[in-house]
């Protein structure tokens, strides 16, 4: 587990840091960027009306950090690889999920084929990634279905059954209306072994002489993700 104690945490406060990989069916966005924001809760950032239906999927992958508070004394910081999971970049995927503590695999509830794609990602993660990885399955675009129910292509029950069988957390979310996004991240955080926080670093790349504090001066604002 790559959780580690953060420098400068309040005494008695728990701070854990985890690596999360967000694998999105190309074209589905759950993690929206666009604006600088401070470390706030997921929902706060998603509340901002930044979702653009026409926004194309991420080019390549984005590296973001996101901090959420589980309760008054526990803060969890996620280092997130947000990737669109495009096929042509498939060979890069192992780099993103290697040593990841948790993964969110996103599919589009209005597109039947997207669940199959998600299933194949789950399979790959279970086979290749960290054996204790916490995987969540997220059916996105709930807002579209709430508006016009006939757009739904994947029944909740079907996806849920699959998730149970494969041992995944399951949520139907809307990035647009922020429905269930906070719940999703909180559920993941609760499943992670917070107590094992320790100064460990599982990154493979050597980083000689370089301070990698995520909030090093000169980086963009403080927190970066707008999840």
């Amino acid at each position: 587990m790559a959780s580690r104690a953060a420098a400068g945490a309040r005494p008695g406060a728990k701070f854990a840091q985890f690596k999360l990989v967000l694998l999105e069916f190309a074209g589905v966005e759950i993690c929206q960027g666009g604006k600088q924001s401070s470390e706030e809760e997921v929902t706060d950032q998603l509340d901002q009306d930044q979702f653009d239906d026409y926004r194309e999927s991420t080019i390549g992958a984005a590296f973001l950090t996101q901090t959420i508070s589980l309760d008054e004394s526990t803060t969890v910081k996620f280092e997130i690889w947000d990737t669109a999971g495009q096929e042509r970049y498939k060979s890069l995927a192992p780099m993103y999920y290697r040593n990841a503590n948790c993964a969110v695999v996103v599919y589009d509830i209005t597109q039947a084929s997207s669940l199959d794609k998600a299933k194949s990602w789950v399979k790959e993660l279970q086979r290749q990634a960290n054996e204790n990885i916490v995987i969540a399955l997220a059916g996105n675009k709930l807002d579209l279905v709430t508006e016009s129910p006939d757009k739904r292509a994947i029944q909740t029950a079907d996806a849920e059954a699959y998730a149970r069988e494969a041992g995944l957390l399951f949520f139907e979310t809307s990035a647009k209306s922020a429905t269930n996004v906070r719940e999703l991240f909180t559920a993941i955080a609760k499943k992670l072994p917070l107590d094992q926080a320790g100064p460990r670093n599982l990154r493979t790349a050597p980083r000689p002489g370089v301070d990698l504090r995520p909030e090093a001066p000169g980086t963009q604002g403080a927190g970066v993700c707008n999840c």
Partner: protein
Amino acid sequence: MIQCPAPSDRVQKRTPIAGMTTLLPDPQSDEPLDENLTPWSASSPPHGESRDRSPSPEGPRPPLPPRPNTLSLLNDETASRTANLQCEATTAVSRGEIGTQSPEAAGSVYSTLAVRGLSRGLKARASLSHLASPRGSEAGDSASIRSSIQNSDPGDVEALFKDFVATAPVDQPGTASLLHFPEFPADDVDDDEFMGEFEPVGELDEDAGNEELLLQRWKSRQKHYMILSAAGKPIWTRHGDGGLISTYVGVVQTIISFYEDSNDHLRSFTAGDTKFVIMTRGPLHLVAISRMMESDDQLRLQLEAFYMQILSTLTLPSLAHLFSVRPSTDLKRPLQGSETLLSSLADSFTRGSPSTLLSALECLKLRKVHRQSINNALLKSKASSLLYGLVVAGGRLVSVVRPKKHSLHPGDLQLLFNMVFEADGVKAGGGESWIPVCLPGFNSSGYLYMYVSFLDLRGDIDENEDISKDESVAIVLISPDKESFFEMQGMRHSFVEQMEKNGSLKVIASAIDQGRPATTDIVPGTVLHHFLYKSRPNVQFTMSSYSPEFTSISRRRRLMSVYNNIHSSVHAKNTHVKVHHCVSRSASSFAWVTPVFELYCVAEPNANRNALVQSASKVAQWVQQEEERLFIIGGAVRII
């Protein structure tokens, strides 16, 4: 309409082709991209020494990685061989007002059409330079110019123009018989109307009830791009989706394949005021349709950029593989996610891009010591797997590190800048990005990995305040190792830390604030409204501020059209124009081409020609004085 003096009054120096080459390199290289291969860090020879594209100071450059020969822009040989056939075939296809052009064969972009068009009463899109036959006296004039250009110090420049002005009869346009030049009608086009060009056409209703309306909107666009596979599958179109315009894509495909069936290649044709340019690259047909008065070569350069973008997404071997396995492959899927890049490229062409027009890059103007300290910080923090490191401020290059053996290809950088600054994918992603990217000019066969992060120069940025793209500064680090993200991230942090310490961040911020100088800052009281200056050995350009004359997008577009026009005049095949003056209803423009630079100026339509010329030579002097600040030259970038 641009009104040009009649042939006999042309203020244009033409030089017989023979003899030119011994003195000067051809002003327009037949292979623009090869020119770009000149490493921009190659030393810029002091004017007067070496006039040719100078080889890199390290001696002969080691061979670059293999490049596809498809990159050579203009395969003219084949075209000219088949040119006659093309013309005949076109006549057969349509009785309408379609003129097929075979620019290279005819030696002029327009001549084929011009001859046909004039007789038909079409608006002649003819540049007089192509119709006029050089006269003896003109040959004499150009000879004197040529000799002057050999020493381009100020005194001689004055002499050059005095000579030029004295020998050229000054006639007011309008007294002689005039041909009408095409001109972008920005006078009566307001910004809103022009912005409509970039709006989505809209989606079809379920019952297709709005089809008529959408098609009408689609047709009203001044510019279209289409990419289709050789098998006829639409891959990407700038406006309208596949369902809406499939019949039109079908027509395009039919026209192209008609020629292919007879082992021919259709390169371009004109219908009314619309120009169609077709380029075939491997399994792809790229089509540009423009009503914006661009020349074939300019449109072809744009299509080339689209092709490079596709290669950049897929790499050449995988593109070839996809189509060799299944010629009917639908390329939409493999390209998924890169449509936004193609669209933003298209829009920057539609707005008009000096960088594309000149095939050159712009640098942020910085004092030499300041740039040096940024370079040093970049070198000092250099990670071992770094291939290229760039600092880019809103599309203007601030600093670059590159390996000794490799230069950077302007076409590649154009793609990178488009991805980083124009398309929303990267910037909107927030945080740091790690993007596999193939740089086709560098090596089209594999991916490199690009780390991008934006600098926060302003400290606290209001969350809701979008930083304009001109003001955003990106650090782009390119590595061949796909696992090196954290290494690049580390390099970025230490680099930024150093820049913070030595004050470079402030220097960059103030350079951005300062912006480009207005023409009146350079030459007080000048008649010039705007200029573009391309330094040929450096493959870089500089220009004056768009304000106050060209702040609106439609006026800027008109400015670019004036530049397009004059650029294509001086770069038309088989013309060796050194100085070109053109008066239209909205502007008078002036081009001056030497082996060292190309200078294009725009002033009021009734600007005095002598004043124009004097200002132009002052601008040239100014650029030469400021050269080391305006451009990144030779030793400024240390080699890894």
